[in-house]
């Protein structure tokens, strides 16, 4: 579904991603871990099409299309969803109004009829149950004054409504209390199908107890320096990143 080949990207002339390759098939869950500043959010942003990042080398194909050619909104409409590490606030715009605009623009792109108010609200109700989000939160302005955890939950709620084929969760677990973490993970799992794939960016093995990854990758200094099965996450939790850093500098060019 997603194929990243030798991806290099820089911001304001500073290279951040330095040759990332990754293959993701439908139905798979990939976890990306790595120290602060290693480029995890950058990778997510580049995939989502944030324009400050310049792709200097490499290719990305998504469901057979050249992803890098598409505008950010078209990537979203093709089914790429990014749950932001820091969701922004949009004062005065209710979540409901925002999501309805989003859903209908996505539908239009796919040649589907727009959802009328009743159908849309039915969809909202159904998804609200899934992530156990409070209706009151959704009638408020988007993310405005939301607590850190509420913002993260709202990201997953939006994901549930938009039903993307590739979801990238950037540290969705940070800021969530234990109960919320379970709820969110449970939501993600319920949304999992054979057709869609998930990338989970996290610092903590704890989340991976709930969302079980097929692969774990370690991103360090703009490269994927190690990949493995879910046990790798446990090993990282135990030993930290130093041994990986050493391994890398041992073989460094």
């Amino acid at each position, binding site marked *: 579904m997603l194929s990243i080949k030798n991806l290099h990207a820089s911001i304001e002339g500073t290279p951040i991603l330095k040759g990332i390759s990754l293959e993701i098939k439908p139905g798979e869950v990939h976890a990306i871990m790595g120290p602060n500043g290693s480029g995890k959010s950058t990778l997510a942003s580049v995939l*989502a*099409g*944030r*324009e*400050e990042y310049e792709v200097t080398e490499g290719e990305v194909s998504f469901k057979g299309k050249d992803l890098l050619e598409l*505008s*950010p*909104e078209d*990537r*979203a*409409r093709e089914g790429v*969803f*990014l749950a*932001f590490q820091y*969701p*922004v606030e*949009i*004062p*005065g*715009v209710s979540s409901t*109004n*925002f*999501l309805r*605009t*989003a*859903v209908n*623009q*996505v539908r239009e*792109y796919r040649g589907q009829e727009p959802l009328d108010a009743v159908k849309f609200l039915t969809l909202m109700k159904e998804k609200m149950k899934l992530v156990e989000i409070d209706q009151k939160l959704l009638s408020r*302005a*988007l993310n405005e004054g939301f607590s850190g955890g509420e913002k993260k939950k709202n990201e997953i709620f*939006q994901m549930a409504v*938009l039903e993307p084929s590739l979801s990238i969760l950037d540290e969705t677990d940070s800021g969530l209390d234990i109960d919320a973490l379970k709820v969110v993970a449970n939501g993600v799992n319920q949304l999992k199908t054979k057709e869609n794939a998930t990338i989970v960016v996290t610092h903590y093995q704890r989340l991976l107890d709930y969302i079980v990854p097929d692969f774990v990758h370690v991103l360090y200094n703009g490269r994927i320096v190690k990949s493995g099965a879910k046990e790798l996450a446990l090993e990282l939790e135990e030993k930290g990143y130093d041994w990986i850093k050493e391994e890398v500098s041992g073989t460094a060019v």
Partner: protein
Amino acid sequence: MSKDNEILEEFTSKEYEHGWSVNYEADEAPIGLNEDIIRWISAKKEEPQWMLDWRLKAYRHWETMEEPTWPNVRYPKIDYQSLRYYSAPKQKKKPSNINEVDPELLKIYDRLGISLNEQKRLQGIAVDAVLDSVSVGTIFKDTLSKLGVIFCSFSEAVKEHPELVKKYLGSVVPATDNYFAALNSAVFSDGSFCYIPKGVRCPMELSTYFRINAANTGQFERTLIIAEDQSYVSYLEGCTAPQRDENQLHAAVVEIYAAEKAEVKYSTVQNWYPGDKNGKGGIYNFVTKRGICAGNHSKISWTQVETGSAVTWKYPSCILKGDHSIGEFYSVAVTNNYQQADTGTKMIHIGKNTRSRIVSKGISAGHSQNSYRGQVQVMKRATNSRNFSQCDSLLMGDKCGAHTFPYIDIHNSTAKVEHEATTSKIGEDQIFYCNQRGIDSEDAVALIVNGYAKEVLNQLPMEFAVEAQKLLALTLEGSVG
């Protein structure tokens, strides 16, 4: 230039939609301004002597006045002798009701999306259509008159209800009030008149639609609204003008009188031609709007969505004379390209326990300048009066300006006056967040701007609110790609 600005720049360059004009045979005053012109206008309108005298007095006063220079706007000096002060479509015979109006004229309004056909009209809005210097027709007049509500053109009111006009004309905005009000008083050609009798809740929105068509002609209309004890009316005003290279002057006066427990809600969606992308042409909108809450427990509420005009100078105000009276001002002012707006309000607290609320949302894009100017005055007698002002500015791009000039003048120590102000920028990250959910940048800006202006838009009657939302999006369209 950052991507952010590039996006916004593209988004802010949409063409004006109502820029067309039509040719019709017109009845025009000669160009220029002097006492004879005023006599000419008055004669044309078959006015009584008192009306002419009132005009001449205003004119003589205007001659002694200087054009104000304190607003934060720049425009070349207006040559008042080069303008035409009256232009009206020639109608073969005076229509006695809307069905007799020349269908060609009605077509102008159809094209603007304003149907003057009572059958086709959405229920609940009565319209008075003013084209250049005259009212071409008022609909739903009969329905209203059964309730005793008078809603007609100003000229008609002068003839049919002289005692009301004499009593209230100039009582809120005196002919000598300011330069443009004096000019208007001398040369005003038409406008709307509205009288709500005691105890009547006007069952439909009353609306005036102003259209400038003729070139080189100023538009000077007057609106007078009188709400008797315990009455209620909601009044809407809309306006457009053709796209022309030269600037055109619009100097209107609106007066509102609210008696005891009366409530008047006045909403404007101003969409005069703003000039082109380079700042050529556009309307100079120099308007005096003022209401007096004369009776106890009365209320006047101004809501304005200002998107058009090259230069705007406008401060809808409330004189809170009655005890417990309430004044409100809700405003969204958008400026784009080279538009300049200096707008705000005055709340003058005279009575006890008076309340005022000011919510101003400025949006500046392109090279425009947007100023809020507001005055809150609390007089000696106004014990326990309260004011709350919220003035927000939203900037799109880095070539525009937003300015706030609050004036607070308090003569009673029990008064409580609060002022809050914020300035923000539409963030690239907000637009990207929307994009990431599948929303294109243009709709993202529309969402963000409408969210920002929500508190004001919520004050508008339903039909108007939708219109205003679209207009906001349209005005800013082209600033994001």
